[in-house]
């Protein structure tokens, strides 16, 4: 049974990395460490969240994130329900706020929400009494992804501070990029963004982050290479001419990777488009790829978040 020390993180919801204090981030990561060890045991069932109800409400298809949250809740002993969006009233025109109020009336203790529109999860959170975890809202944030990436880096490198991290690819549409940028900067890493100019956000210079449109220059001397999925489903208009050209310029190949430090760690939030943003050879390099570590850390980090957000409910225990 992992230790449950007092947490400085005392928020009602986890909607974004923006606004979190570094000690709150460190707190969640420390808490998650305990769950990493626990998850490697054969008896994974805890009773921390026994009696509590967790609803996973996913407006966008996602197998891995939803499964990760589902496992996290179940391992903590919560009753976990997945709301299937297709075929539900949501498709019949019910508004987000109506759905929120309907779910609220069922007295859940935690809602895990993914939505295709930026700000939608925060809007929903205004209309429920329980804890809400943002599992990705539009192009805004995906805070648990950034936390699991940070935990992966911390375990593989022993620290985050002082590392140079290149976030590469479709930064414009990526909530993963936004959350990671904010978290890694808050924890003292120096972050760079690498991508085609059409996939870097406007006014990026105000983010105080170096940007590169040349992949090799961007990877020069990096400790961590974080690849982003090319969000083809989100694209309106032509951002890049072709997948072939994108791979040539921005696909992570062994050759481009030579620009980074020899022991640079490779990360990807998944699901990967092999041959689009990453070469299979690189993704499968067990010495350098942390991609499966990220998946493992995901469950632990989500357990920590669920634990932290429901602590006030258990104070009387």
């Amino acid at each position, binding site marked *: 049974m992992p230790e449950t020390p007092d947490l400085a993180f005392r928020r009602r919801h986890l909607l974004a990395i*923006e606004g979190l204090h570094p000690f709150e981030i460190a707190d969640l990561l420390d808490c998650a460490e305990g769950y990493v060890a626990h998850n490697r045991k054969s008896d994974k069932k805890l009773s921390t969240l026994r009696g509590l109800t967790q609803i996973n409400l996913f407006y966008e298809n996602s197998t891995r994130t939803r499964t990760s949250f589902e496992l996290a809740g179940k391992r903590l002993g919560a009753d976990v329900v997945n709301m299937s969006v297709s075929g539900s009233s949501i498709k019949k025109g019910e*508004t*987000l*706020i109506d759905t929120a109020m309907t779910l609220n009336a069922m007295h859940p203790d935690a809602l895990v929400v993914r*939505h295709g*529109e*930026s*700000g*939608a999860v*925060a*809007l929903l959170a205004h209309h429920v009494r329980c804890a809400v975890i943002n599992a990705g*809202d*539009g*192009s*805004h*944030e995906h805070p648990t992804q950034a936390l699991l990436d940070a935990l992966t880096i911390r375990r593989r490198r022993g620290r985050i501070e002082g590392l140079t991290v290149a976030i590469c690819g479709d930064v414009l549409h990526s*909530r993963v990029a*936004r959350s990671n940028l904010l978290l890694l900067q808050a924890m003292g890493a120096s972050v760079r963004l690498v991508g085609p100019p059409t996939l870097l*956000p*406007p*006014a*990026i210079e*105000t*983010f105080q982050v170096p940007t590169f449109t040349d992949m090799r220059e961007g990877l020069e001397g990096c400790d961590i290479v974080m690849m982003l999925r090319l969000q083809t489903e989100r694209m*309106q208009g032509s951002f890049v001419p072709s997948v072939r050209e994108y791979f040539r310029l921005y696909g992570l190949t062994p050759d481009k990777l030579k620009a980074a430090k020899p022991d640079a760690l490779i990360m990807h939030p998944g699901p990967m488009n092999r041959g689009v943003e990453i070469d299979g050879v690189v993704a499968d390099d067990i010495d350098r790829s942390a991609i499966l570590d990220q998946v493992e850390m995901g469950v632990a980090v989500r357990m920590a978040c669920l634990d932290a957000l429901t602590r006030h409910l258990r104070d009387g225990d």
Partner: protein
Amino acid sequence: MPLLIRNVRLLDPASNLDAGGSLLVEGGRIASLGREVPVPDGAETLDGGGLCLAPGLVDLRVRFGEPGAEHKERLESGVRAAAAGGVTSVAVLPDTEPPIDDPAMLEFVAARARRLKSVKVHPYAALTKGLAGKQLAELALLKEAGAVAFTDGDRAVADARVMRRALSYAGALGLLVVQPPEEPSLAEGGVMNEGAVASRLGLAGVPAAAEVMMIERDLRLVALTGARYHAALVSTAEAVEAIRQAKARGLPVTCATTPHHLALNELEVEGYRTYAKVRPPLRAEPDRLAVVQGLKDGTVDAVCSDHTPQDQDSKRLPFAQAAFGVVGVETLLPVALKLHHEEGLSLLDVLRPLTVAPAGLLGLEAGRLAVGAAADLVLFDSDAPWKITEAGLSSLAKNTAFEGRLVQGRIERTWVDGRTVFKRV
């Protein structure tokens, strides 16, 4: 019965009058005004208590929901809100459902409004059929039916050839073409101002350049055709500068802005506040300051509310899905008066773009305190502080961008043709 309004501060931007005195209304018209006014026998007398008496405001750009969006606003609620805001003439946009692109439809709206015997409602007509930007609407017939100007509402005429023909044709009829300047192909999908805030919030932006590039294209067409052109709303520094230079070159161009573009910037959108989602979007602070400067130096001719009623269900949505627009006809003057209280503009300079200037653009006989003019008047306290609240609004729609804001300047009474259409209780 004649009405004497005495003990008021008479404010008339058209004649630069700012002096204490009285004003006499007879037969719905202004019979005389000044320090000493002869009082006919049996005149009703109203003591203005030293408050400001100005021409009723002329709002160049409102939507009152009819036809097609009666659940959001109706002519009745719209004119009630206008009267409560001291507005005595409004121009209603044609981007209704169906659009006002046909003389019968235009006459219907005008007749509906006349029957209300309140604020004067002047319909715009569509510039192109179905607001589609392809084929000219029947401009001459629409003019006969009473159209005050032509516009496709929120949609810019994207096709340069269609716009050129529209300008030539409307120009010959002596009517104003009003273009909402936004290059649609560049703005497509954008929901707020492009920039650091949009990038942080993960929202698609409309670049400031989308506005000036449409204006610059149109200025070329104005030069080709010689027709009068009015940029419906300007929100950026570069657009203001383009208009300033065009005016210096002698082109017949004018432009307007809104109180929200004068008072607010893109930071209002923080927290995904859909009540700050407007077209054009609220811009960065340097742009806002440039628009204020444009108003001060006369580049920006008029201030209009762009009153766009939306029901709660259209706004309580994720930001990108929420409808554009805010109501504003009722708060037009109090928000504009911030320019007086905070920017040092004189009351006359604040009132000019709200009265005589917009009336002149549409060729309306309104917006003046002059003997013989219609007694369309507003009595207001320029200093009285109050708080804008949804509950306090008379409009059916409550989507104000100024909820909870403190403003100075309160309307006490409004007259149209000498009849009281609003009186604070």
